[in-house]
């Protein structure tokens, strides 16, 4: 499905660990206005609004009740996807493909500091089999890390290299929350959260909001000279109970990537994808994602990071923005990956712009424990 819908503008709030001083509505309002300013559009030019937020994060059931107006959705055709914003962008994309809408705005937000990533992820657990154990994001991911590393002989140092690489990339990203260079030794000596995951393997706690404006081909060209086209998208949901899944691989991501590649007519991702932004809540996940996305062979994630292929100056840079390692605004992290990819493709990434402007790039997001669900976009110019 080439060149039917484009990403034409965006806004990102500053990503911070604790936006205690800002009301959620204010945060959204300012970010939406930023996105509108980016495109030169007025709120009246937006045909449909899709939100992405979560009751449990907000501590307000039906989270869009009090935020829809701050998104500019009053008397508009609005809906809310209760997943990461990358899934809301998918729904906006579907709507734009049908005809009545020419522009769509995707707004994702979360102030996780008002609650906690532990309660957010812990409540994903069913009440009978998982919740009694204290399973949440860190512990479920740690089980997965153990399984993956054991199966393929991946070392903790190799995982640490992801944290080092992404934090280095984050130094150049104005929006990044974490701006601190670290070494593999720093990661290895940071306190263990749940083995083998250590403090610096983990993404930070981040509040934030992200907005993307999408438009049909006809409208996109009037809005911007640098539209970024959605060339293909694939998404998939895998098994829920971690004991049922082959934890050493990310099946849903493999399938999502295959679907996205097929839609975008990508035959050889390592050759055809110029750069990627992936959602890596913990360092080792980026290695697993290399494999699932077909950027290297099975079990070769560690080798890919060792060879420096995915470094900023490598042949296939991954997370030039610093990724989730530098800011993990829950509900928005995936949409930020889409936006960052669009920034690279349109040449608007500023200080962290790749020297050789990419033509085709990949954005990934995920939802659920152990990356149960995945969505993959292929974007291009």
């Amino acid at each position: 499905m080439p060149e039917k819908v484009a990403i034409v503008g965006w806004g990102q709030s500053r990503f911070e660990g604790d936006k205690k001083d800002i009301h959620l509505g204010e945060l959204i309002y300012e970010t939406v206005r930023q996105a509108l300013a980016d495109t030169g559009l007025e709120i009246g030019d937006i045909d449909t609004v899709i939100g992405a937020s979560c009751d449990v994060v907000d501590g307000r059931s039906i989270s869009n009740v009090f935020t829809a107006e701050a998104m500019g959705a009053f008397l508009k055709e609005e809906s809310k996807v209760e997943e990461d914003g990358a899934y809301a962008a998918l729904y906006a994309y579907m709507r734009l493909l049908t005809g009545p809408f020419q522009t769509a705005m995707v707004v994702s937000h979360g102030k996780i500091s008002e609650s906690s990533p532990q309660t957010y992820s812990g409540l994903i657990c069913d009440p009978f089999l998982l919740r009694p154990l204290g399973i949440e994001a860190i512990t479920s991911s740690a089980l997965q890390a153990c399984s993956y590393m054991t199966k393929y002989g991946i070392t903790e140092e190799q995982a640490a290299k992801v944290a080092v690489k992404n934090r280095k990339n984050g130094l150049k990203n104005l929006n990044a929350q974490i701006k601190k260079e670290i070494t593999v030794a720093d990661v290895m000596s940071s306190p263990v959260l749940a083995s083998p995951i250590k403090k610096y393997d983990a993404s930070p706690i981040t509040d934030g909001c992200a907005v993307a404006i999408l438009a049909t081909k006809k409208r996109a060209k009037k809005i911007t000279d640098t539209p970024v086209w959605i060339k293909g998208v694939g998404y998939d949901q895998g098994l829920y109970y971690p004991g049922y899944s082959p934890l050493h691989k990310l099946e849903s991501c493999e399938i999502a990537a295959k679907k996205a590649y097929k839609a975008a007519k990508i035959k050889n991702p390592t050759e055809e994808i110029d750069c990627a932004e992936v959602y890596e809540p913990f360092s080792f996940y980026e290695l697993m994602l290399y494999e699932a996305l077909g950027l290297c062979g099975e079990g070769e994630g560690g080798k890919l990071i060792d060879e420096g292929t995915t470094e900023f100056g490598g042949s296939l840079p991954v997370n030039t923005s610093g990724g989730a390692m530098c800011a993990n605004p829950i509900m928005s992290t995936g949409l930020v990956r889409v936006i960052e990819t669009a920034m690279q493709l349109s040449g608007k990434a500023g200080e962290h712009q790749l020297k050789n402007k990419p033509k085709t790039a990949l954005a990934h997001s995920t939802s659920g424990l152990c990356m149960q669900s995945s969505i993959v976009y292929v974007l291009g110019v």
Partner: protein
Amino acid sequence: MGNDVISQVKAKVTVPYRWSYGSSLSRFFYETKVNKRLMGARCTKCGKVLVPAHRLCGRCFAPTDDNWIELSDHGVLECFTVVYLPFPGQPKQPPYAYGMIRLDGADTQYPHLIGEIEFDKITTDMRVQAVWNEERKGDLYDIKYFKPEEPI
């Protein structure tokens, strides 16, 4: 034995939160606490006055004027209910009455309790006025409730 089926698993879930007031609500409740004033904000586009004062007008998506307007603490009860329905963990024990009050000078409604009147005497469109709490913490209960307006 052997074929027991558990029919219910009981547990209590408690999720802690820390909700931010943000600049507008902080300032609004600062005014109720310190100055016993209800403040509204005027939309820079349509001119309507929002209470509590907010950063934006939902209708126009325009920001409100930073110069807030002091509103009367009298107004009209536009609609109301008397709650008798009980449920576990209810924040306020029934029976009680609350409604939406259009304060004089405001274009939106302010929610609050209705007091000092027998429930069956409450009517829509009646004039009401705020009864302020002596001790105020900077929240909705800086006003105890609204009561029928006293004749001037």
